[in-house]
């Protein structure tokens, strides 16, 4: 956990010196660069993982109502 926090803080700190102009964001605008490339597919996957993994739960995003029969 500490390693993750340190990594992110370092990345954000280093990035603080950089300004990316709008004209430089062509690659970033591509669908391949979205944090969720296919939200419906990832939502489907998350609904499986919430059942099959004891430490996985949905984030506070949209559509998080769930129901389960306990048979999995």
């Amino acid at each position: 956990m500490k390693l993750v926090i340190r990594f992110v803080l370092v990345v954000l700190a280093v990035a603080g010196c950089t300004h990316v102009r709008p004209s430089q964001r062509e690659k970033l605008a591509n669908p391949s660069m979205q944090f969720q490339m296919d939200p419906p597919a990832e939502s489907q996957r998350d609904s499986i993982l919430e059942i099959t993994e004891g430490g996985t739960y949905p984030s506070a995003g949209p559509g998080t109502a769930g129901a389960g029969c306990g048979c999995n």
Partner: protein
Amino acid sequence: MQLARALLFVAVMTIAASAQAPGDTPPTPPPAPTATGSDTPSADDYRDVLAGEKPTTDPAAPESSTTAASSDEIPVTGTGRFGVYHDSDATTVMRGLATAVKQWDHWSVNATAVVDAVTSASVDVKTSPALGKVDVVTGASGRSSTSGGEMSDTRYLGTVGAGWNDTHGHALNLTTSAATERDYASISAGLNGSTDVADRTVTLLGGFTVTDNWISSVLDSTLHRKMYAIGWSGGVARVITPTDAVRLRYDGKLSDGYQASPYRSVRFGDWTTTTLSTGQITFANTIGSADGLPENYPETRVSTALTAEWVHALALGVGVHTSVRAAHDSWGVDSLTPSIDLRIAKTSWRMQLGYRFYAQTQANFFEDKYTMDPSMYTNYSSDKELGREVGHLGAFDVATTLMDPETANDARMMLFFHTEVFEYSYPGYVLLPSRTSAFIEAGLSWEH
């Protein structure tokens, strides 16, 4: 019959989603990549670093698609999907999903319907004192189970949402959901939003959800329990170079109420098992009843997770997404989840290939075998997902354009296939050392 009804339901939703698809009306003008080096941006110049749930720019899109369209001409977009999940623990889920989205200027509404038809003769079912027996009439399915305990049910989930986006980096989304099956129902509402700052190179996000659940049992008409949950989320995303963006997100969840399964029981002592020809698993050498006792969980569980993500462009249309999620909860379950995905998004096709690792520690009250008298334990569970667990997930997605937009009024029709393979091991868990699962899905989508 239930499956037929489910498929019909999804088919209707899919038709509704596609009712105004290609050719009816013009799409929302997608943002065009800026050709100059100007530092004076327009609203469309920016990549919203949280843009995973909104239309994205295709740099190779036809120039005509940037033609402005009046807001009332923007058609409905959507997707229809059908998938099958099957695992080595004798559980099969057939899933249908349909979504539809309609936009007006800064506003949008969306609807999603999901139907899951579940059939299971898993270890949980076969060891259940009631479900595991032969000729138990499962109220969930309404039919007699004659194969040593097979449970079936159909789950319906409906979601309706509304969104607002000022196109200048400020967005809000409100979502409500309801899900029901024979022995479980839930409703939820969620609000989340994001705002861009620092010349729109940084996006701040946050949200919360509330969920209310009703749990009952197909075998015990007197069982009526509730479980409430609230979730919260906050984070920051940042563009750091022309080819890199990072996101850090914190999620939390508080659950309070009945969190066990009404069908699972816990046996005590150094028990042994026998599998009958019917499939039922029986226990011997137990302390107390061979049927055990119903699970007993703490009523409250607080979970938190921190997720760091990084997307890096190898080339135009080729990206790598990596993430690490670390989670902890008040039951003592700690988990770590690194993942990596290679993505390719070209004008007429897309592909994604990913791997995800998962490892968790066991809950502080979980034991593979509760060898002492039940009175010695405050809480106990037979849920393998609360024990030690190691998982591997491989995923492959491919999508291709079936119909290109011929005019600015058209949408793009995409055909896609989605495959996932899961492998979980449960070290120390005698009844099920490992489980292999696969989920295969195909569908159509109409995009702008």
